[in-house]
C-alpha cells in the first residue's frame, strides 16, 4: 500500500497523468489509501486525507465513503479538522443523506462555541444544507444569536434565519422581532442580512409585509446616508458607497411600495435622488440605477418619476457596454405594454440595436421593435424589419418572419403594400415561414382583385429568378395558373410591361415541375396551374395535354392521380373543362372548414362558397367518412337523383351538369343563409308504409350543428323485431348516430323506438338525409329507404 501523499503532491500527480485512464489509476490508488486511513485511528493526517477526497470528488469521482469521516471530523476539537469536516459536509452531504442528521448535534454544540470562527463554521453549514428538521431544532438558537452576539456572528445568523424561513415557513413569525431590531444596526454586513431576512419574511407572509411597511422611513434614511455620504474606504466601490446594500434596500422598498400609495409616496423623493445622483460611468453605478428603475416602475410612483426611469433606460440603450444595452431592452420589453408612449420615444435607438453584433441584443431588439409597430410608423418600421430579416441570424428568422406577417396584417396601409411585404418576406426567408402563410397569402391576393395583374407579373418575375423557396414558388404557381390570362396580356399599369408568351409561362411551370428542388406539394401546385392555363391560353393546349399525360405515369401518387384526372377532363369531359377550371371566387378568411397545414392548392376545397360553384375533380379524393357504407347520397355518377339543384353535384365533380352556370338557382340556394330560429321542434312524418311510421323532429344546436330525433312506431297487428335505422348524408356533413332506445316495435303502437342523430354541417350545404329502415316481421326481413329533403324547423337551404 503506497503511503498517503500530501494534498498538493496528489494534485500534481493527478494533473501529470497523460490520459484519462492513467488519471483514473492514480485516483483509484489514492482513494484506496484514503479509505484505509479513514479506518485507522487518529493519525494527525485526517484533515488532509479528507481534503484529498474532496478534490477527487470535484473531478467527478464518487466520494460517498467520505461522508462518515466528515461527521467524525466535525465532532473533532481541532479547528483545522472542523474546518475541512464542515467543508466536506457542505460538499458531500445534503439533506437527503442520512448522515446529515448526525451532524445536527455537532452544529448545535458549535453554535455556542467560545470561538466565533467555530460558530461561523456551524452557521455557514446550517445555512447551506440544513434540512427542515435541523432547522426546526436549531431555530431558537439562531434567534438567540440574532439578538446577542457580535456583528460577525449576527450577520451570519441573519442569513441562517433566511434559510430556516425558506425551509420551514411557519418559523418566520419567530424571527420578525429580531429582524426589526436589526435594522438599527450600523454594521453593513448585519444590515444587509437584516434586509434580506425582511425581504424573505415579507414575500412569504402578506401580513408580515403590512407590519414591515412601517420601516419604510428607516430604510429611506439608511439609503440617504449611503447615497449622500462622502467617501467611505470600507464600502466604496468605484465611487458608490456599498452598492450591494443599496441594491438590496431598493429591492425591499420595491416590495413594500408595491400596490401601496402611502409607502410609494414616502419613497418618491429618495428614488428621484438616487436616480439623479448616482454616477453612471461605471457598471456598479448602473447596477444601482437599474435597480432604482425597476423599483420605480413597480411601485405606484408619480408620472414624473416614471418618465425619469424610462429615460434612464433610454440612456442605457446608448451605452457602449453591451450588457447595459441588453438589460435596458429587457426592461423596456416589460413595460412596452403599460408605458407604450414613453418607450416609443426611444424607438430609433431600439431599431438601431437590430444591427448590434450580439445575438442576444438582436433578439431583444427584434421583440421590442415588433411590440412598437403601430399604424403611424408601419412603413418605416417595416423597412427596418425587412432589412433585418435579410441579414438576421438563422435562429431568429422564423420569429422575425411571423412577427412581420402579424404586423403587416394589423397595420397594412394598403393591399398592394401588404402583398409586396409578404412577397418580400417569402423571397428573403421563404424557408422559415409557417405553413399557413401560403393559403393566407393566396387568400389575400384573391381579395385584392385590382392587383391581380400586378401580383402575377411580380410573382412570375420572382419565379424566374429563384425556384428554391417553396412557399414563394407555390404562391407563384397558383397565381400563374389562376391569372395566366392577365400575365399573357402583357400590359399592367403598376409595373413595367413585360412580354410573356404562352411558352414562357409554360416553361416556368415546367421548370418547377422538373426541378429536384421542388417539393411534392409544390409540384402539385405547378401541375394544377398548368392545367388551369389550358383554358386561359389559345395556342399551346396540346403542349399542356402532353405535359399532363406524361405525369399520368409519375411515381408520385398524388401527381399521378391529378394527371390522370386532368387527362380524363381532356378526353371525356372536355365540354366541362372551361367550367371546372374557371376563375376562383374570393376566398373568405377563417371559414370554419379552413384547415392549415398541407396547402395543396385545394385550400379552396375547404371553402364553402367556392364549393358551391365549382367542382374541382380533386374532390373525389375525399375519403368517404360516413358512418355507414350506404349509398353515396349525392355522389356516384350513376345516381339519378331527383331533379335537385346543381348543388347536389358538388361532391362528385364529374357529375356536374350545367355547373357552368355560376349563377341561377345556386345563388338562390345560397341566399338562404340566415340562421334558423330556434322554435320548438315540430314533428314531421317522414315515412309511412306497412304500418310503420317514422317521424322526425330537429333542433338546431349551433350555427352548424343539428340534432335530429327519429321516432318509429308500429301500428300494424304484428310485432316487429330487429328494428334498425341507418342514415346517410351529403359528404361534407358529419353524422353521428346515438344508440337507439330499443330494437323492437310491438304491434298497435304500444311502444316507440327513438333514435337521435347528431349532424354537423360546417359547409352549410343543403341538408338531405337518406334513411334505411330494416326490420323482421314474422320471420321475414324487410328493408326500405326514404329520402328526407326538408327538415322541420329549417328553411329551404337546410340551414
Amino acid at each position: 500500500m503506497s503511503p498517503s501523499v500530501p494534498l498538493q503532491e496528489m494534485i500534481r500527480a493527478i494533473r501529470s497523468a497523460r490520459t484519462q485512464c492513467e488519471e483514473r489509476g492514480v485516483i483509484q490508488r489514492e482513494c484506496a489509501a484514503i479509505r484505509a486511513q479513514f479506518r485507522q485511528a487518529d493519525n494527525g493526517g485526517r484533515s488532509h486525507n479528507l481534503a484529498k477526497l474532496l478534490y477527487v470528488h470535484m473531478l467527478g469521482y464518487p466520494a460517498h465513503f467520505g461522508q462518515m469521516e466528515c461527521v467524525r471530523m466535525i465532532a473533532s476539537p481541532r479547528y483545522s479538522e472542523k474546518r475541512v469536516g464542515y467543508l466536506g459536509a457542505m460538499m458531500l452531504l445534503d439533506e437527503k443523506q442520512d448522515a446529515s442528521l448526525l451532524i445536527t448535534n455537532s452544529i448545535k454544540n458549535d453554535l455556542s462555541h467560545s470561538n466565533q470562527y467555530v460558530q461561523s463554521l456551524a452557521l455557514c453549514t446550517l445555512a447551506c444544507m440544513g434540512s427542515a428538521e435541523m432547522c426546526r431544532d436549531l431555530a431558537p438558537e439562531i434567534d438567540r444569536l440574532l439578538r446577542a452576539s457580535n456583528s460577525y456572528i449576527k450577520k451570519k445568523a441573519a442569513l441562517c434565519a433566511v434559510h430556516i424561513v425558506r425551509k420551514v415557513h411557519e418559523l418566520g413569525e419567530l424571527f420578525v422581532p429580531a429582524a426589526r431590531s436589526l435594522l438599527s444596526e450600523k454594521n453593513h454586513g448585519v444590515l444587509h442580512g437584516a434586509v434580506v431576512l425582511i425581504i424573505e419574511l415579507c414575500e412569504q407572509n402578506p401580513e408580515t409585509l403590512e407590519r414591515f411597511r412601517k420601516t419604510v422611513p428607516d430604510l429611506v434614511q439608511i439609503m440617504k446616508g449611503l447615497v449622500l455620504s462622502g467617501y467611505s474606504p470600507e464600502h466604496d466601490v468605484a465611487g458608490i458607497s456599498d452598492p450591494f446594500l443599496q441594491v438590496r434596500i431598493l429591492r425591499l422598498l420595491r416590495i413594500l411600495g408595491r400596490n401601496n400609495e402611502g409607502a410609494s409616496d414616502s419613497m418618491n423623493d429618495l428614488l428621484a435622488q438616487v436616480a439623479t445622483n448616482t454616477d453612471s460611468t461605471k457598471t456598479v453605478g448602473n447596477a444601482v440605477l437599474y435597480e432604482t428603475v425597476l423599483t420605480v416602475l413597480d411601485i405606484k410612483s408619480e408620472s414624473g418619476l416614471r418618465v425619469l426611469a424610462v429615460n434612464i433606460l433610454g440612456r442605457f440603450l446608448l451605452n457602449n457596454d453591451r450588457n447595459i444595452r441588453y438589460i435596458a431592452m429587457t426592461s423596456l420589453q416589460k413595460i412596452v405594454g403599460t408605458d407604450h408612449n414613453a418607450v416609443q420615444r426611444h424607438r430609433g435607438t431600439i431599431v438601431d440595436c437590430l444591427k448590434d453584433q450580439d445575438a442576444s441584443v438582436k433578439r431583444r431588439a427584434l421583440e421590442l421593435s415588433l411590440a412598437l409597430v403601430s399604424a403611424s410608423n408601419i412603413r418605416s418600421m417595416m423597412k427596418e424589419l425587412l432589412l433585418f430579416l435579410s441579414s438576421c441570424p438563422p435562429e431568429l428568422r422564423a420569429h422575425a418572419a411571423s412577427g412581420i406577417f402579424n404586423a403587416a396584417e394589423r397595420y397594412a396601409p394598403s393591399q398592394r403594400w401588404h402583398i409586396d411585404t409578404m412577397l418580400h418576406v417569402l423571397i428573403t426567408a421563404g424557408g422559415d415561414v409557417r405553413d399557413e402563410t401560403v393559403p393566407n397569402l393566396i387568400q389575400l391576393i384573391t381579395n385584392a382583385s385590382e392587383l391581380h395583374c400586378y401580383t402575377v407579373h411580380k410573382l412570375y418575375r420572382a419565379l424566374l429568378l429563384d425556384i428554391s423557396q417553396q412557399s414563394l414558388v407555390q404562391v407563384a404557381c397558383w397565381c400563374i395558373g389562376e391569372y395566366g390570362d392577365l400575365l399573357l396580356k402583357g400590359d399592367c399599369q403598376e409595373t413595367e410591361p413585360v412580354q410573356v408568351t404562352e411558352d414562357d409561362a409554360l416553361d416556368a411551370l415546367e421548370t418547377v415541375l422538373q426541378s429536384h428542388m421542388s417539393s411534392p406539394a409544390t409540384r402539385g401546385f405547378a401541375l394544377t396551374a398548368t392545367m388551369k392555363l389550358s383554358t386561359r391560353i389559345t395556342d399551346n393546349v396540346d403542349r399542356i395535354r402532353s405535359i399532363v399525360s406524361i405525369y399520368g405515369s409519375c411515381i408520385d401518387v398524388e401527381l399521378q392521380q391529378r394527371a390522370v384526372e386532368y387527362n380524363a377532363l381532356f378526353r371525356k369531359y372536355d365540354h366541362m373543362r372551361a367550367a371546372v377550371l374557371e376563375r376562383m371566387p374570393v376566398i373568405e378568411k377563417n371559414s370554419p372548414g379552413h384547415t392549415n397545414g398541407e396547402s395543396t392548392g385545394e385550400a379552396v376545397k375547404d371553402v364553402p362558397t367556392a364549393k358551391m360553384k365549382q367542382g374541382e375533380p380533386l374532390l373525389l379524393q375525399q375519403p368517404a367518412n360516413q358512418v355507414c357504407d350506404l349509398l353515396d347520397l349525392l355522389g356516384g355518377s350513376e345516381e339519378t337523383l331527383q331533379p335537385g339543384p346543381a348543388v347536389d353535384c358538388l361532391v362528385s365533380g364529374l357529375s356536374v351538369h350545367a355547373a357552368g352556370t355560376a349563377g341561377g338557382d345556386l345563388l338562390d340556394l345560397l341566399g338562404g343563409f340566415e340562421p334558423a330560429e330556434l322554435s320548438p321542434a315540430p314533428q314531421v312524418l317522414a315515412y309511412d308504409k306497412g304500418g310503420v311510421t317514422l317521424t322526425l323532429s330537429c333542433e338546431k344546436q349551433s350555427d352548424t350543428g343539428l340534432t335530429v330525433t327519429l321516432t318509429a312506431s308500429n301500428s300494424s297487428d304484428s310485432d316487429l323485431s330487429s328494428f334498425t335505422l341507418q342514415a346517410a348524408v351529403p359528404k361534407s356533413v358529419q353524422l353521428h348516430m346515438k344508440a337507439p332506445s330499443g330494437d323492437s316495435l310491438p304491434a298497435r303502437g304500444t311502444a316507440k323506438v327513438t333514435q337521435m342523430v347528431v349532424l354537423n354541417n360546417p359547409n352549410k350545404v343543403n341538408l338531405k338525409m337518406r334513411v334505411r329502415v330494416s326490420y323482421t316481421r314474422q320471420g321475414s326481413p324487410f328493408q326500405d329507404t326514404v329520402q328526407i329533403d326538408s327538415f322541420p324547423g329549417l328553411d329551404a337551404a337546410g340551414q
Partner: protein
Amino acid sequence: MLTCMRFLLLFSRQGKLRLQKWFTPMSEREKKKIIRDMTTMVLARQPRSCNFLHWKDLKVIYKRYASLYFCLAIENQENELIALEVIHRYVELLDKYFGNVCELDIIFNFEKAYFILDEFLIGGEIQETSKQMVNRSIEASDMLQETMEEYMSKPAF
C-alpha cells in the same frame, strides 16, 4: 426554494471544473447535468457577447478572468449587473489572498477558495459587503488554524 443565487461554478477553458458551490439542494445527477450544460453553453459564446444568458428559468451571468470562467446563476427577478459585481468582488478577494491569483492557485488551494467564498456568501446571499472585513476574517481563521496546530504540535496541511 428560491435563493438569490442558485449556484456558482468555476471552470477552465477546457471545461475542467475548479470550484462548484450549490445554494439549493440538488441530486448528484442534476449537478452533473448542470455542469455539462453550463460549460457547453458558456464556452460556446462569442468573445464579444454580453455576459448574460438564459437557461431554463434562471439567468446565468458569466465572466472570464484569465483562464477561468466564473459562472453564476441567479433567479429571474434578480439584478444581473449587481451579479457581475458579485463575481468581480470574489475575484478581488481571491486576488488579495493569493496575491495575483491565477488558476493554479485555485487548483492547488481549492479548499482556501471555498473558505474565502464562505466568508463572502452564505445560503445564496451576500453576507459581507466590505472587502476588508472578509479579508480580515480569512486571515484570522487561518491564524487560528496555525496557532492551534502549533499548540497541538501537529503539522499543518
